[in-house]
């Protein structure tokens, strides 16, 4: 295999790993914030949650 292909593969792997990790971190943050907001909303409007 061409030497430059190894170089491209290594950087693609590292960029992919960092990108995936960062994306799933931001996704988890958005998800937990949405759930927290929903619970706080239902607690501040107890009548709505009983309906």
């Amino acid at each position: 295999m061409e030497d430059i292909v190894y170089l491209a593969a290594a950087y693609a792997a590292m960029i992919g790993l960092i990108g995936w990790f960062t994306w799933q971190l931001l996704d988890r943050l958005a998800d937990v914030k949405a759930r927290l907001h929903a619970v706080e909303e239902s607690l501040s409007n107890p009548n709505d949650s009983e309906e």
Partner: protein
Amino acid sequence: MRGVLLMLVGLGVAGVAMVLGFVHAPAAQGFEPFSFRIIFWHVPAAWTSFLTFGMLFVGSLAWFWKRSEWGWTLSGIAAELSLLFGLCVVTSGPIWGAAEWGTPWDWSDARLNTYGLLSALALFLVMARRSQPDTPEFRDVYAGFGLFGFMLVPITYMATRWWQERHPAPVVGGEEGNMVDGTILSIWLLAFAGMVILMIGQALVSAEVQKCERRLAELQQGLD
């Protein structure tokens, strides 16, 4: 948000270092012309992982010693970051090994094996934390492995001095006549700065996730 901004800045700085490594760094004598440029992220990622294993040690120790909640949080953040930077090292290293040595891994090389063990430990900690119930006993076992992991760091670092087989000998703080070129060292330090900024940004976002999860758990407990 501060964490996201730091991540963007860190990625930008590391990206500039990568480009400088391609276009500005001199060729290294005795190495393949292109694939050796993997080192411009491979080495700083390894240095950054040593920092994150240090954070894991501090967090684990704080849990053991003081039963500190922030120590427990820090150890969780550090394990994830150690896994990320460890994976960057153990994927890029074997790719370079395949180009340079004709084999991706050498089971007789202490540096490769101790670093592989470190990364496997980080994977174990991340998986255990996500799959096991959060009890004081689990935290003790987790922190024990965290402390053990950090003990591997100096062994891994010194492995190329004590038992050098295939992995190149140290070129920073190594022997006379085996020192790295000044331009390469500058680019390494730039990439390292970028990765540390990125890592701090990721740690801040991860801390925010854990804070929200704790608050959510408290509210749900209150509802139950």
